[in-house]
């Protein structure tokens, strides 16, 4: 798989604040890459650096395996912070300017306006738009003429629930078309729902990165019950991954050292003659994981 973005020990300091601290990660083609972190963790600073808006103090990055420059930026569609357009120009005219800069024709403008539901208002001035519409125009502008990668910085910030749902559906839809996406968010469920890979940032440092699926799949406990709790407890304690257990009313809470599949666990107990009356997996959510990581570091 080809590398879209590669960042090597990037650092940026604003006075006393280390906004980005020795950050490295790679985004490969086809990934939906989440940059997750609380506000002020360096997400926007990182995105601003890789889009040549601000200069890094240390480190380097490459786009599409080559040195960054205006030509690589033309292949990127991005929505950074608030939507920035000329207030006195119509949506259509604003997108014409974007197409001009990217050396693209105007043929694709109608498509992205329809896709974001702004086609009927294409000739209205940008300043007459509601916030949700402005945000959607920013997405339309980013999608113009099929970018190789899409950068979204808090795309649902400040939107109402309906707007959030629309934007998320749109992003998932785009991702399904195979466009690489880099999404910065402080919302865990957003990253959980949309992303395939994630890097967790805190105070400019990368705490953790990997596949979202793997992060979510870490099951740290199961709740079990059967007709005879004592036999169950004995049987489970000989499981090779067994760590500890505790009786919790009728339910037996069992902790394992690593990943255990519920089906495998069920058949393991069944082989020992135990029929479970209850089996539930207690997934450690990204949120819990995230909070744990933050606690470890501070």
């Amino acid at each position, binding site marked *: 798989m080809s590398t879209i973005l590669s960042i090597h020990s990037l650092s940026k300091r604003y006075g006393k604040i280390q906004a980005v601290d020795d950050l490295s990660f790679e985004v490969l083609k086809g990934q939906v890459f989440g940059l997750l972190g609380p506000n002020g963790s360096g997400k926007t600073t990182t995105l*601003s650096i890789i*889009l*040549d*808006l*601000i*200069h890094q103090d240390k480190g380097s990055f490459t786009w599409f395996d080559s040195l960054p*420059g*205006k*030509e690589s*930026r*033309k292949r*990127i569609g*991005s929505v*950074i912070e*608030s939507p*920035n*357009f*000329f*207030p*006195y*120009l119509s949506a259509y*005219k604003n997108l*014409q*300017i*974007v197409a*001009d*800069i*990217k*050396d693209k024709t105007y043929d694709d403008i109608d498509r992205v306006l329809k896709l974001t539901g702004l086609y009927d208002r294409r000739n209205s001035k940008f300043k007459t738009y509601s916030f949700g519409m402005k945000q959607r125009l920013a997405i339309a*502008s980013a999608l113009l003429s099929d970018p190789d990668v899409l950068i979204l910085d808090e795309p649902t910030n400040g939107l109402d629930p309906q707007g959030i749902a629309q934007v998320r559906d749109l992003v998932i839809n785009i991702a399904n078309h195979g466009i690489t996406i880099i999404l910065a968010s402080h919302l865990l469920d957003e990253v959980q729902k949309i992303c395939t890979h994630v890097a967790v940032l805190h105070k400019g440092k990368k705490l953790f990165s990997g596949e979202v699926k793997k992060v979510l799949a870490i099951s740290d406990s199961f709740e079990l019950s059967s007709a005879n709790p004592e036999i169950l407890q004995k049987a489970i304690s000989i499981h090779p991954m067994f760590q500890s257990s505790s009786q919790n009313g009728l339910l037996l809470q069992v902790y394992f050292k690593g990943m255990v599949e519920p089906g495998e666990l069920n058949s393991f107990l069944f082989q020992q003659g135990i029929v479970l009356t209850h089996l539930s997996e207690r997934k450690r959510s990204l949120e819990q994981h995230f909070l744990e990581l933050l606690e470890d570091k501070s």
Partner: protein
Amino acid sequence: MIKLLRIEIKKILTYKIFWILFGLYFFFLACGILMAEFMINNIVDDMNRHLPIPFPHVAIYYFPDVWQNLTFFASIRFVLIFPAMIIMILITNEYTFKTIRQNIINGMSKAEFLASKLQIIFIMALFTTLVLAIGALIIGISHSGFDNMAILSKGIPFIVGFFISILTFLIYAFFLAFMLRNTGLSIAVFTLYSLIIEPILFTFLKSPYIFKNKIFEYLPVNAAISITEYPAIPVLKKVMGLELQPNVTLTSCLIPILNSAILIGIVYWVTTKKDL
């Protein structure tokens, strides 16, 4: 370059404030030029009341003086401040709307962005110069008729001089707008400097009892607007002891050009180094 111009024209074409200010500029410019003779003669009448031998009325619209007179009136700092404001608004708007960030993100280089603004300045200066040249020609012909081509060649140095005046004056505005990145602030500082601070500085430096050199000639705004230094009005020579300017000199053109080149260099250096 054509692409940058196309983008820039799109930004301006439906921008009402630009057209209102641009229209006002030409309205006041035309009023000033057409009323200049009347106003000067009012002053002459005032003076004549206290003089035993009255001065004759001035006539400023005759060939070849009309070239020098019109370029002089059009390059007065109070007049040039108008297009300078327009340029500062166009540039600082990009910071206010954050569209400069968006342009860079979308794949424009910072050098291209600066070039696109310099193009607009160049076109605005050229357009104003052309209007002034055509205006001077029409006014001149209507007052003294058109007899030979020599009256045109006499005008060319003044017209070129005016072009350099307005171009360099607008580049100063460009410089300040990119340095301060704020509409109100850059207009206020520019107005304050060019209308008040520099004239005071100029008078101070020019005073022969203080400085025995010609450093005042290098003050940026003064250098830009003094290419046509005085109007061609003989009575001024008698009243104020001014020498009549025979022609536009190369030095007077080179000083503001050099100033602007340095300022463009600074803008380029700062803009590429500084974060957006």
